[in-house]
């Protein structure tokens, strides 16, 4: 059986997260937690590959607090066969390196015969896009980032990935096992069927703590992290804006024209452009 491991993170619905300007702490009260959208796209790709090939098992892995079970439940609804939650105080406060080390070790010890690892391009809270490539390096795998479509070749030895490159689209091909990070592409978030939801609630979420594995405790969580967040603060407030209302279109155009002129944006305009 081929095994596709999908690393998934639970994140706060970020648009609601703010910093208390006096204490400098994150205001997370009442903020909903969701499965990171990019992880959801990754899971969708795994589920799609599985649909075409019955010989595939999809395993979702999440490191997080006990309530991260919700994110894994959603993975089961979307088509994961197994869900593993790594939860332990010792994992708390991990930076990207400590996170990648923990996830890589768990995969190495629990699913050593994996075929493919999928991760989201980035988590919408930490926003670093580093965990995927760091896992790939620790496990010595080839990596392809910014994937929008993933297919295993018929001989099952390589993965072909359509990806978003800076100036267009590329197709890259890598020897398996490999790690691919997934961005939005054409994937739409979908609602699972009622049957899938019922099935998912019958499945068990496997809980793993630090003691269940052989891990170097010096490399876990805050203690294992190389970076330290020393301060969080609200983004600088924006300059005063001049907002004009109730203008006729011609007046509005005149205002913009004058603004462009005063700020010298009409001097280098491309003469002879169409």
């Amino acid at each position, binding site marked *: 059986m081929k095994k596709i491991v999908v690393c998934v993170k639970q994140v706060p619905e970020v648009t609601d997260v703010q910093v208390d300007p006096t204490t400098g702490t994150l205001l997370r009260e009442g903020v909903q937690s969701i499965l990171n959208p990019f992880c959801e796209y990754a899971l969708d790709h795994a589920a799609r590959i599985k649909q075409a090939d019955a010989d595939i098992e999809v395993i979702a892995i999440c490191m997080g607090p006990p309530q991260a079970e919700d994110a894994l439940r959603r993975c089961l609804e979307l088509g994961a066969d197994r869900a593993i939650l790594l939860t332990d105080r010792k994992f708390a406060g991990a930076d990207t390196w400590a996170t990648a080390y923990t996830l890589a070790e768990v995969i190495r010890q629990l699913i050593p015969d994996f075929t493919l690892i999928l991760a989201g391009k980035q988590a919408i809270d930490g926003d670093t896009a*580093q965990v995927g490539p760091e896992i790939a*390096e620790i496990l010595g795998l080839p990596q392809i980032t910014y994937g929008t479509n993933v297919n295993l070749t018929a001989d099952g030895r390589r993965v072909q990935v359509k990806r978003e490159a800076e100036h267009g*689209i590329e197709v*890259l091909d890598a020897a398996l096992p490999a790690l691919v990070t997934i961005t939005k592409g054409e994937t739409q978030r979908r609602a699972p069927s009622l049957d899938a939801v019922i099935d998912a609630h019958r499945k068990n979420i496997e809980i793993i703590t630090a003691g269940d594995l052989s891990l170097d405790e010096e490399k876990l969580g805050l203690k294992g992290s190389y970076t*330290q967040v020393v301060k969080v603060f609200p983004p600088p407030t924006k300059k005063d*804006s001049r907002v004009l209302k109730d*203008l006729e279109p011609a007046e509005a155009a005149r205002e913009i*024209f004058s603004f462009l*002129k005063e700020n010298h944006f009409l001097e280098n305009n491309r003469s002879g452009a169409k």
Partner: protein
Amino acid sequence: RKQIDAEELRKYKGVFVWAELENGKPRKVVLELLGKGRELADQLGQELSAVIIAAETNFDPADLGNYGADRVILCQHKFLDTYSTEGYTQALSAVIASEMPSVVLYGATPHGRDLAPRVAARLRLGLTADCTRLSIDDDGQLVQTRPAFGGNIMASIITPHTRPQTATVRPNVFPALEPDPSRLAEVVEFPLTMSRAAIRTRLVQSENLDADDQVGIADARIIVSGGRGMGKAANLEMLKTLADQLGGTTAGSRIIVEQGWIPHTHQVGQSGTTVGPQLYIAAGISGAVQHLVGMSASKTVIAINKDPEAPILNVADLGIVGDALEIIPILNQMIEDDRNKNS
């Protein structure tokens, strides 16, 4: 965690910039990083080096001295002709391990964000993503400040236990130095042995989606950007006309990329490209955080939106509450008339 004591930490000296090339020449963000790197190196009293990884270059590496570099480390090999994660990781890791710098900076470009975490994990280093501010504190440590949570918060991060301290840095945030043609960098070659087999990915196909007559949005000086409020793809033509008249590039929100009105290479925002033009014109864009985080480095912003409550108006130097579809054609005519009058 690997941890080195204070005395050991002090052995790491110098500020390094990964000089990413495009078509054999350094990208704009490299010049920006050299400007910032110069300032950091001066504060530390150390050297600034640019590291070039390539098969060939189309310019004189010594010219990076014009932008502040003291030294250029040239790491050339025929297998480094196109970017590959594994080839470039091997090259840069070898340079860093042998030269022992105190700071390494990368542009937070697609390649920079692919390469930096790979090198960090190989050498067991901390890495801060997408920095928008860098400074040296009283202990000589690099303080790295970055937006997180989709731009809703800022965080300052240090890397106390390991060297080098490594960071990716957003393009268009720091200014490049005014080039000084009399200043040349010393060029040193860094020999490398590599095997083709070490690169396990292959490029099967690639397609360029950028319009021929426009520069990529990451480097554009003027951007005219549209959102769902433009109504339909055909209406983007008026933005193209405006961009052409101003010598700029067109772009848009994720919604219009999903609609297929523009290619993803022109998407501004958290899951698109971070831009920092002199002028950003937003037409029919609401200004969701994920969009704002991608354009907040713009020097000047003009926004046109029907809805007086649209958040984009709060970040605009000039905000117009009105119908873009009516206003822009008139504006285009005014600019054209003005040009005809002056020519």
